[in-house]
């Protein structure tokens, strides 16, 4: 179960690659999709590895990505 | 509203124009000045530096005029009424920031105690050669208001007026003194504070959500907010829309720049101040301002003694130029005589406004002293000999 979750504001991304490079657990990769400006935004390839550290968010020059910690599932399972 | 008594040195004084200007600023509510020393204006801020710590305010001498002319604007946006003083070379340096004040609609006063130029020129001697620069000195299309006192008393009274106009129209006002008016000592009567009308800052009463920093009504002047009040507004020198956001398109440019111009031009009649005498039935009207108007007074009186029908129009506001008044007069007079301590500046405006209906005679003087009344009289006599149009 991932500890964090990435949110991406696709239209703001300029595909600089910072988030992909500096994610410590290599959660992200640039996708083959395009946003309306023609940039390849990142996508989550290893969601289970996301720790919610938000380094991607801290590095992003375009405020196009951030990660949040996910509350762990309840204890009755 | 009435002046704050803390800044009003009520009483009868014998002081020079520079000192009177400082007192006018304090009476108007100015509590911030940023300056840089330059003859013959320095005494204004020297006095302010001495007075303001006992009134409650700040003076800072900046490292150059480039800084002084924008530091005062920072102070305005921080809530103060603010001004700076300078002369020719410093006025030239300040031009970019005069344009910035016009573009951002920052209410403030720039005092230019004119001296001989160009360049270093005559630091301790008078001229009136910055008049066109006051109007056109910065780049781009914008309007300013310029006042010309001709006595220390007017240096006091009109400085208050300058601040009031700045606040009313959210515009930088040029206070065009000259070295003689600045350095001549005369009686200056400073009334009690409750007899001095002061225009308050046009501060918005709108809520944070409703407020548009550059939104306007029919008078075309936006309401202001200060930093620290929660409005979180943006101010930029870039062409901007009502939100204050940069919007660099021809459409927004047209709208903005025409408004900056029209907010002054549409009120030109209201803003115009002049002193008139013997205009009824005049053949010749002497148009003058500042120290030259004192000399012209003598020439006019002499001419009238000789039986010539000479009237006086003294410009108190040089800008916006009182075109309407000149055009009306031009229909009825033979000629205008315009003595100035320059080689022909405001005379061009007179000529333009007269539109050929009357002749225009310049009485130029390169500066460094004042005219001899005889020189002005000579031209009045010549002008009187003009055939009626």
């Amino acid at each position, binding site marked *: 179960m991932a500890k964090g979750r990435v*949110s991406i504001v696709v239209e703001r991304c300029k595909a600089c690659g910072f988030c992909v490079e500096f994610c410590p657990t290599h959660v992200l990769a640039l996708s083959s999709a395009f946003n309306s400006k023609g940039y390849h*935004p990142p996508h989550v390839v290893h*969601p289970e590895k996301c720790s919610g550290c938000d380094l991607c968010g801290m590095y992003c020059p375009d405020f196009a990505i951030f990660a949040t910690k996910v509350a762990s599932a309840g204890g009755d399972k | 509203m009435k002046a704050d008594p803390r800044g009003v040195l009520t009483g009868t004084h014998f002081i020079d124009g520079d000192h009177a200007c400082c007192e006018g600023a304090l009476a108007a509510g100015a509590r911030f000045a940023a300056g840089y020393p330059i003859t013959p204006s320095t005494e204004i801020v020297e006095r302010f530096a001495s007075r303001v710590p006992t009134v409650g305010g*700040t003076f800072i001498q900046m*490292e150059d005029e480039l800084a002084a002319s924008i530091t005062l604007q*920072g102070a305005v946006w921080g809530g103060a009424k603010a001004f700076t003083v300078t002369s020719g070379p410093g006025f030239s340096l300040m031009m970019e920031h005069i344009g910035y004040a016009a573009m951002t609609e920052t209410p403030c006063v720039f005092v230019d105690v004119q001296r001989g130029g160009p360049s270093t020129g005559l630091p301790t001697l008078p001229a009136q050669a910055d008049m066109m620069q006051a109007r056109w000195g910065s780049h781009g299309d914008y309007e300013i208001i310029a006042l010309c006192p001709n006595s220390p008393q007017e240096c006091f009274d009109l400085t208050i007026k300058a601040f009031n106009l700045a606040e009313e129209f959210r515009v930088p006002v040029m206070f065009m003194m000259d070295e003689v008016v600045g350095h001549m000592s005369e009686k200056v009567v400073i009334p009690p504070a409750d007899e001095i009308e002061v225009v308050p800052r046009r501060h918005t009463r709108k809520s944070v959500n409703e407020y548009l920093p550059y939104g306007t009504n029919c008078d075309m002047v936006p309401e202001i907010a200060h930093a620290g009040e929660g409005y979180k507004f943006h101010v930029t020198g870039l062409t901007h829309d009502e939100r204050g956001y940069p919007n660099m398109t021809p459409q927004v440019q047209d709208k903005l720049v025409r408004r900056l111009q029209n907010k002054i031009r549409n009120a030109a009649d209201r803003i115009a101040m002049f002193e008139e005498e013997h205009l009824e039935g005049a053949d010749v009207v002497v148009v003058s301002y500042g120290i030259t108007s004192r000399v012209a007074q003598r020439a006019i009186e002499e001419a009238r003694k000789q039986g010539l029908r000479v009237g006086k129009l003294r410009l108190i506001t040089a800008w916006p130029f009182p075109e309407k008044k000149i055009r009306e007069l031009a229909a009825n007079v033979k000629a205008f005589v315009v003595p100035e301590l320059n080689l022909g500046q405001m005379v061009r405006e007179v000529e333009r406004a007269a539109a050929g209906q009357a002749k225009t005679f310049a009485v130029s003087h390169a500066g460094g002293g004042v005219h001899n009344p005889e020189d002005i009289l000579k031209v009045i006599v010549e002008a009187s000999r003009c055939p009626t149009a």
Partner: protein
Amino acid sequence: MSDSLNEALVNLDSNPVVNPVEPFLRGDRMPHIWCPGCGIGTTVNSFARALIESKIDLQSLALVSGIGCTGRVAGYVKLDSFHTTHGRAIPFATGLKLANPKLNVVVYSGDGDLSAIGGNHLIHAARRNIDLKVICVNNLIYAMTGGQTAPTTPDHSTTSTNPYGVFEPSFNLPHLVEAAGAVYVARWTTFHVRQLSRSISEAFQKKGFSFIEVISPCPTLYQRRNKLGDGLDAMKYYKAKSKVRHGAPTSEVGLTMTGEIIVGKFVDRDRPDYQTMMRTQYAESLGERYVEQPEMICS
């Protein structure tokens, strides 16, 4: 579109999450104009996080910038912000601070703006110890106008005004501002996002002239013209070649085109700020006659 891209889109579900820096941005002006790989946005990110961390009252925070790419920061932050003239953010900020001492005033501008045309104001404000927090984004070039040589452009770089290579020595900004009197001097790069945030927070705790230099990529001009790759390549260079040396003598932290980048907090000292000195002097000289400036806000 791939499934994972779908999943990654900003969710509209029952728990909408918002970027923690979103409240600091003028969302109606996004996306911003900075190039792909430009580091300015990253510095703004760090700045916003410092604001969150330090719990600064946003209402009493004012941000002043000059002209240039970094100058555009003022237009993107949701604060009382002033985009002033080239080189003159510091004197404008001085006026703002003196008129309303309760304001926290940040100057956010670029290397050319602050050290070339603004150089005089930089040194005097540092000398006077005006209580300003100056964030100098140093991309080693005049970027907005197309890549001309700046006083910070490293030796041998190629620029549009030095097409055959820069031959002037470049400014060592930390050294300059320390010598002029700054009480807090730090340098980071856009790779050092957390340290930069921390430095900004520290500067907010300090009274006096604080100067934080941030080395940042200009991919379109500096990187490209010097065949140094793109923004990401610059970031990798910063990561590889930065050396943290807190307290390093600022005379030793000059930059070269591809050499070591000394980062860290170089100066953290205390001396009275301008307004404190002013009040002390007036009180001493005028005694009871001194009217300490009442709040200048004119109604």
